[in-house]
């Protein structure tokens, strides 16, 4: 069972109070993009064995979307952060690096 802290209301939420939103930090490719880019955006998802960044929504609480950094193997949670960013903030990267030196996730490391 995952327990994530909502960065907006500070509540420690159980997984059942949240709605999963899939992979974090996707860049949309819409009209004008190539077929390959659009396919990548629409269907291709990272499925890492280890460090992962996800979107979650505090659906039974404040209703806000947020990001979470966690480990898909150990279920360790490195931190949660605002939805209004395009990449993980430095303190989250540091928290991951402390536990998993040399981690990689898509283009982030």
């Amino acid at each position, binding site marked *: 069972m995952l327990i994530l802290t909502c960065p907006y*209301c*500070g509540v420690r*939420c159980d997984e059942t109070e949240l709605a999963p939103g899939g992979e974090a930090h996707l860049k949309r490719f819409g009209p004008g993009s190539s077929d390959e880019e659009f396919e990548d955006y629409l269907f291709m998802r990272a499925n890492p064995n280890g460090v992962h960044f996800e979107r979650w929504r505090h659906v*039974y609480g404040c209703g806000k979307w947020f990001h979470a950094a966690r480990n898909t193997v150990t279920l360790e949670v490195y931190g949660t952060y605002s939805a209004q960013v395009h990449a993980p903030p430095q303190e989250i990267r540091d928290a991951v690096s402390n536990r998993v030196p040399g981690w990689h996730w898509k283009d982030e490391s």
Partner: protein
Amino acid sequence: MPESVTPLDGATCSGFVTIKDAGLAGMILLRADLGDTDVVSALQGAGFDLPDPAELVGELGNGALWMSPDELMILCAHDEAEAIVATLAEALSELHVLVANVSDARAVFRLSGNGSAVREVLAKLSPADLRQAALPPGRVRRTRLAQVPAAFWFASDDEAVLICFRSVAGYVLELLLKVATPGSEVGHF
């Protein structure tokens, strides 16, 4: 206008805690950026105290609940709600806000009895941390109660107030009654 009634119509039930329909309550939804100093000063100018995140000021019938970073629920008397909506709309008219009277959208319960028994009844149904230190009186927890959303807070050490949507009021009453069945005490708290 037809007379307002609560969905539970004054029901009172007893298990190892007492579950009571709290009666008609005035609730006003206020959507605004609560981090915006203009909104805060306009609200304070109109005589409303703002609760801190995840907390409540005042009580049922006269207070305010923090619902999310951009949502407050103003608690007032049922028959005063329309007048307060008008006051708020006037005070906040220059700002980007939404004020609506949602008094009849939700059902309100009072759970009273031994403080630890009340905590136990809620803990049986929700994943929230119900220890005294995590949820002291004055703190609000919006969470899940079995299969439906609900919010609750402790008005005093021995009494909790619970709100849920009107459409699920009967379900929530039956849930609470079931987990408050005498003999089913766990004694965790």
